[in-house]
């Protein structure tokens, strides 16, 4: 391979990106050296096994990926703003919509959700960490280096260009000869394995690590949603693992699972992809439902309406999510029986989802609603997500779907589900739990400004797409002619996309402003909330709870505040057993990155060496004896004294 094939060449925007990558990397290296922060970075972050720090790193990565995916979106919208635009060529546009989809789903929505799980779930159930803290760090670094491997593809080797669904035979070597789709299969594989381990970790954590008295039916709704989500992960992700492995064999080792020749089956890929892909949609939406439930209950000062039916509806959704995948390709020609079956199962999901919408509405009833920034997102979610939901029912009808399939109507629908659902959800969760981690709230005024820009921008950007779809505009077209009449609505959509982008700029500015000027919280419970995590001081000490709480009801903290039911028993502190930090997960992640990178370019000798290194790392861990360490009662007392002042 020649160097000019190795680096992506000939595109001024990509040269600019290369220069800025080098400049930013140098700035980070020089900055770390100048401020002598290398040791701090290694000790406090790269080697940490603390669920809160891992959660923060997940969310930080997700925000960076949101930026990358958002820039992709703006480039696409600019190209589509007017007929016959010459801003991007077809190849570049194809790469950009592919990376936009992959990054937003797998490297933005997923880590954001998993980051919030990490930060919040152990605190909500009264645990000191997740069940397997070291495994948790491995999960994070696998995700992180998978994401990095995917992202370097646009300067080295070329990005994948067959859509985020990578349908075969388009994604096969025959029609997609660059290494782009090798990056796709390997980067997703590495981060997908990390996600699978997260699934195991959180199921065990929630089932085994709850504080005494925290029965399943007393858990906060977010924890419930996380439990169900991780069960879905456990069943769905192995399908992706297998599909990606077959894809890798096809592309790198010459097998013929999905190819056109020798009996390969292109629709087998589509089936495997969506058997994972549809549950994946619920993996990113259910935790958002959980977040909204906790937020709506907190800010209407009421317990959640219909708790049991909320849990039951999520269980039903999780089961149904596995038997609807064929609605992604009704047009494959499977006939009336198959399409009828999948239409009915798909529409059936509307029933449990409707139950949730009504339960949220009735939680508000007789409440005392205060419109904080997280609550604003929750309140925008209900009406906007309902539009996404009802258009989903329309798409579920097979006969009508023959007309919506692959059009902008579909694009509008899934953005109307994923943005008000997942994105508003994780943003609401971020505003809500931010003070728990950092000890101060984000500025409300800036938060609300960003909120309005995002809501207005979102609707302006995506409402027109429903009409464009019905006018016959298909998705993934890099250009269109003026006589199609698509021009004006596309211009509106592009303006909306830029308003949305301004909203995100304000959101980021809020971090800066609040770090400098926001008043620090005093008591660890700035929202007057209801669940256990708010009974700890902010920022939360490394051991979370000085004493393990004793849970006697749902919304235990609220009961403690209103009815004086004590959360903690009297008596002296006991030593707390904590896990040691370790550099191994980070090193394993780096090795996996190189293993993936070498395989992408079919450099087998280095790949085999990296593969052996992975095995060595696993063996090292097996023979390691690490019993953790204990925090002494005196140290706990001192920390609590410092964080809570004289009140304890």
């Amino acid at each position, binding site marked *: 391979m020649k160097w000019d094939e190795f680096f992506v060449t000939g595109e001024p925007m990509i040269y600019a990106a290369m220069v800025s990558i080098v400049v930013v990397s140098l700035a980070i290296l020089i900055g770390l050296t100048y401020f002598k922060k290398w040791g701090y970075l290694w000790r406090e972050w790269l080697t940490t096994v603390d669920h809160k720090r891992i959660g923060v790193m997940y969310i930080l990565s997700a925000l960076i990926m949101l930026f990358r995916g958002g820039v992709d979106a703006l480039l696409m919208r600019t190209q589509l703003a007017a007929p016959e635009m010459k801003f991007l060529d*077809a*190849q570049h546009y*194809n790469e950009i919509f592919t990376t936009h989809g992959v990054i937003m789903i797998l490297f933005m929505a997923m880590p954001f959700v998993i980051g919030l799980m990490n930060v919040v779930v152990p605190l909500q159930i009264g645990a000191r960490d997740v069940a397997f803290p070291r495994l948790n760090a491995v999960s994070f670094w696998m995700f992180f280096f998978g994401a990095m491997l995917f992202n370097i593809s646009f300067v080295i080797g070329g990005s994948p*260009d067959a859509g985020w669904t990578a*349908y075969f*035979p*388009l994604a096969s070597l025959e*029609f*997609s000869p660059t290494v782009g789709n090798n990056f796709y299969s390997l980067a997703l594989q590495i981060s997908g394995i990390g996600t699978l381990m997260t699934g195991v970790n959180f199921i065990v954590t929630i089932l085994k690590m709850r504080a005494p008295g925290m029965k399943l039916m007393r858990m906060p709704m977010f924890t419930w949603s996380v439990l169900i989500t991780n069960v879905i992960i456990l069943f769905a992700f192995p399908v992706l693992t297998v599909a990606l492995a077959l894809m890798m064999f096809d592309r790198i080792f010459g097998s013929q699972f999905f190819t056109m020749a020798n009996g390969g*089956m*292109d629709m087998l890929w589509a089936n495997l992809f969506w058997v994972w892909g549809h549950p994946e949609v619920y993996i990113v939406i259910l935790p958002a439902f959980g977040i909204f439930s906790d937020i709506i209950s907190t800010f209407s000062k*009421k317990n959640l309406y*219909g*708790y049991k*039916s909320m849990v039951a509806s999520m269980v039903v959704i999780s089961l149904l999510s596995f038997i609807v995948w064929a609605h992604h*390709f009704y047009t*494959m*020609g*499977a006939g*009336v029986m198959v*399409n*009828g079956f999948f239409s*009915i199962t798909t*529409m059936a999901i*509307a*029933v449990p989802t*409707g139950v949730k*919408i009504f339960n949220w*509405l*009735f939680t*508000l009833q*007789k*409440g005392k*609603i*205060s*419109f904080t920034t997280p609550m604003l997102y929750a309140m925008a979610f*209900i009406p906007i997500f*309902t539009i996404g939901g009802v258009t989903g029912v*329309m798409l*579920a*009808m*097979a*006969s*009508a779907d*023959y*007309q919506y*399939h*692959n059009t902008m109507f579909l694009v509008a629908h899934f953005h109307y589900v994923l943005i008000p659902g997942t994105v508003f959800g994780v943003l609401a969760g971020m505003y809500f739990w931010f003070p728990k981690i950092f000890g101060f709230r984000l500025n409300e005024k800036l938060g*609300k400004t960003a909120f*309005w820009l995002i809501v207005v921008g979102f*609707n*302006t950007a995506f409402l027109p797409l429903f*009409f464009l779809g019905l*006018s*016959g505009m*298909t*998705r993934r077209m890099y250009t269109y002619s003026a006589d199609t*009449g698509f021009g*004006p*609505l596309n211009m509106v959509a592009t303006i909306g996309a830029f308003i949305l982008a301004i909203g995100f700029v304000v959101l980021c500015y809020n971090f800066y402003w609040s770090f400098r000027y926001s008043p620090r919280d005093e008591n660890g419970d700035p929202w007057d909330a209801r669940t256990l995590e708010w009974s700890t001081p902010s920022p939360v000490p490394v051991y979370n709870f000085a004493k393990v709480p004793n849970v006697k009801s749902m919304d235990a903290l609220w009961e403690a505040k209103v009815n004086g039911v004590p959360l903690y028993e009297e008596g002296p502190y006991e030593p707390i057993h904590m896990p040691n930090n370790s550099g191994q997960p980070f090193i394993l992640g780096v090795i996996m990155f190189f293993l993936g990178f070498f395989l992408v370019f079919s450099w087998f000798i280095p790949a085999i060496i990296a593969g052996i290194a992975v095995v060595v790392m696993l063996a090292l861990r097996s023979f390691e004896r690490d019993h953790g360490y204990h925090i002494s009662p005196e140290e706990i007392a001192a920390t609590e004294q410092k964080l809570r002042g004289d009140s304890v």
Partner: protein
Amino acid sequence: MKKKRWLFFGLFVSIMLLLSGCDSSSLIVLDPKGPQAKTQSSTIIFSILMMAFVLIVVYILYIIMLTKYRASKTSDDYIPPHIEGNKWLEFTWIAIPVIIVAILSVVTVKTTSAVESVPAGYEDQKPLVIYAASSNWKWHFSYPEEGVETVNYVNIPTNRPIEFRLYSYGPITSFWVPQLGGQKYAMSDMVNTLHLLADTPGSFMGRNSNFSGKGYAQMEFEVQSMSAGDFSKWVDDVKKTAPKLTEDKFNALLKTSYVGRESFSSTHLGFNPPPEMDMSEGHHGSGSSDKDSGSETMDHSDMSNMEDMGSMEHGN
């Protein structure tokens, strides 16, 4: 905050005005020119009405809750009650959606079955078979009975059922003529059948709607529906004036990325037959493929015979 809400509302209204300002006939999916598309557009409109009802119920409740129970409207010492839920209310909002879904399910199965078969009322007519094959990035249309082939345009007679048989010489594509009916995939390893019918003469946009690589955006074709007489006149014209499609010419055509419209007085079905498996028709055994390949051999070897038959038919 009040001001911002009005700003938001104003923006929303202006978007709606802008949208309604668009010529409603530009929503071609809702402007059908054949029975299949008509079934689909009325299904869509029916579902929009049902869903509008759901939206209105949710929005009314939402507005009531948000205006009535905001903290600024309650006294400082108001403590919201603890409410577990209500059996009957929860039953209601399970039962009503179940009924709605049941109604929509019946509609879906009925209409899906309708658009998957020969349009109602036209069953006694012999459908016109047209093979539509995609290759990077164009469409080939072969008329086995007429013995003609076109590229990137297809002419059809009005009021006669058309049976498109779809397949692909490459990535999966999707054959879509919105004003005549919904789309279906064209794949390399099987033939899909799509039943369409035009009941008015005219020119309709058709395109590949499934992303298939670099030239995807340009992968459009024109469907022209015309009276049976005009159609047979056009077939005769093509047979007289257009060149024969040789195997070499066809292979060269497959390799060319973009071409304009072309016409030929013979088809590629003989020397480059479509894939044998036809899942949509439900036959799997060798029976159907024998039949198919049999008729294709006939097309090829006995072309003159076929031509006579074709012209006889049109003479009627």
